[in-house]
């Protein structure tokens, strides 16, 4: 798909596309409040009465959920600002996805917070004058990057879901539900093949 062949939305100045345009990295750096908005909206995916507490407690051990939301969002934001590598941002993202994979979200809800960045950028952009705004071309590139990352985090989500199932199966096998001979000596031969390994073909982030 090329930009020239696209039908541009009404009001978009096609000549502007040919000028030097504002990069997404500059736009995000200049409009840091987008990051705060993204954090707030991600926090708002949790039940209303608890959000303030999750936001206010900054200690990473006292509030791992709040910390991981902030860490994942800011790392990814910095990635789009051009100051953090994608690989590093994805590690932070996986920490958060692992949490959201066991919270009461549907699969779509669990990963869709990424698109809240799109929403926040779009809102901010619509309020800008032409020379401070993202070009349509730059917006498309940005959107494409977000979509690619969304697919990656959906893979992360699935690999973590599969891990939960594996954990449940292996807990059963450890014998708290079944009385089995406890002798490791007798069982080590029999059970050599019984630990369920991750089978997710997408699990590039799975520690094996």
């Amino acid at each position: 798909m090329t930009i020239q062949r696209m039908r541009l939305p009404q009001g978009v100045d096609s000549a502007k596309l040919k000028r030097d345009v504002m990069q997404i990295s500059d736009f995000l750096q200049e409009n840091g409040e987008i990051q705060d908005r993204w954090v707030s909206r991600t926090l708002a995916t949790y039940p209303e009465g608890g959000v303030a507490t999750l936001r206010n407690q900054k200690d990473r051990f006292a509030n791992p959920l709040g910390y991981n939301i902030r860490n994942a969002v800011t790392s990814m934001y910095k990635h789009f600002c051009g100051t953090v590598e994608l690989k590093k941002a994805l590690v932070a993202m996986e920490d958060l996805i692992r949490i959201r994979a066991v919270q009461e979200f549907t699969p779509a809800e669990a990963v869709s917070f990424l698109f809240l960045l799109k929403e926040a950028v779009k809102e901010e952009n619509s309020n800008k004058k032409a020379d401070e705004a993202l070009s349509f071309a730059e917006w498309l590139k940005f959107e494409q990057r977000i979509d690619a990352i969304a697919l990656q985090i959906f893979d992360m989500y699935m690999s973590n879901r599969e891990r939960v199932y594996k954990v449940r199966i292996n807990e059963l096998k450890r014998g708290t539900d079944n009385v089995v001979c406890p002798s490791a000596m007798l069982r080590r031969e029999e059970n050599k093949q019984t630990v369920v390994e991750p089978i997710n073909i997408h699990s590039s982030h799975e520690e094996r």
Partner: protein
Amino acid sequence: MADPKADQLGESVAKDPSMMTGAVPAKDWMDTPVEFKSGNYCYPAKQSMVEYHKFPNPREWAPEDDDWKLPENWQEIILNGMKERLDKFRSLKVFMDCCVRCGACADKCHFFLGTGDPKNMPVLRAELMRSVYRNDFTTAGKILGKMAGGRPMTVEVLKEWFMYYYQCTECRRCSVYCPYGIDTAEVTMMGRELLHLVGIGTNWILEPAANSNRTGNHMGLQPHTFKDNIGYLCDDVEEITGIKIEPTFNRKGAEILFITPSADVFAEPGIYTAMGYLLLFEHLGLDYTWSTYASEGGNFGLFTNNEMMKKLNAKQYAEAKRLGVKWILGGECGHMWRVIHQYMDTMNGPADFLEVPTSPITGTRFDNAAATKMVHISEFTADLIKNGKLKLDPSRNDHRTVTFHDSCNTARGMGLLDEPRYVINNVVNKFHEMPEATIREQTFCCGSGTGLNTGEIMELRMRAGLPRANAVKHVKERYDVDTLSCVCAIDRATLSALMEYWNPEVGVCGVSELVGNALIMDGEKERETDLRFTPLAGMEGDADV
């Protein structure tokens, strides 16, 4: 009659921002109904289990159904039950009255931290009951109703209780921070007791409790099976160390009765801890016996009601009396110790047919156990090490880099903080603590205690265990920690699952397993593996595994 001031303060609990955290509770929390869906509740108790315990209103019912088939007069039953307990337990009355909504507890619960659900803030979880208390047991509430933070006992409230009193592990972390010392765990205990009055309970708790009542342990292992299982463990110990151990069972006249959770006898990784006990007692030549009747340290009565807790606890003491032992040595269990330390003496004490425990090896008199006559294995072992009675080679644990999880019940329930650390530091060379706010009195729960360690709520357990797992992740990344040690059987089971999800490189073990690895036994063969048949450091190429 309640103090009016307390009622006014109570009103602010439901409406005003927290003084400490600024958190504003959702205005309509009272009107937000719970939604039961697969994975967010424990399976209800089978009718046969409720009947076995002779609990009222046995029936088959399902949390996801609108109709829970409650008895017609269920509200009367609950309110009468509350009245009885408010009269009987002074602590409940105080906890219902004295909360000032300072918010200190709000962000201290692992269930809140893992779910973000405000009803998992300890203050609000207690409010689920306090609102009913206000409505029916205080003057202000009777007159002003919702304006005074009261609400009538409805089916929706009852369902909320079932949801949230089974999203509390009674770990008591919140009570550490409460300026009034409100023990939310006891509110949860009362909530569960009241639910049992109308036939609402979970199978994962009532079935083990029934087994424990009948055969002496949660799994329902009969005496010969219990004995055989320990026999298998002795075979493994012999293969690893060359030492043949022949423990005794139900032996009258033994000096000490040893009681540990039955999971140590049949389930991984507890069985390696049991092998540690066997080696330690053999090393000392201790005059002790196992019992196939008091074959369970755990007491699921703590998660059910006070009568059941008393009955299961009494069994241990009845067996000690029957065998004529001098005192009881207790293994690595969590809630057994909370029952012993906080409730035993008033429930079943005084155990004056026993002696104040005195170590036959060191002569140390455990005056801290003068009332209960029961000593924790870590206290016992620490005393042995302190007095130079153990021959230890900590390098046999060099293939492990260890951290220690304080179990809620031993840490907060009995103050056992330094003894396990002293033991670990003497049997392990590579030990690293987790961050300060996550250990000792402030320890984070495994997320699956109080009978919540059941498979159908695995996701709930994983999110509740997040704060603990998060601290382990930190020491794993910083120090390459690969072993999470603990002194609780439920921890050993639940942390194994928790680590498999959050930190798959970290295994779980009991402290006594590490002791067993390090103990130099008289006449032993050269050790090539640890008690799990894993090669020791430097032996990786030699062991036949």
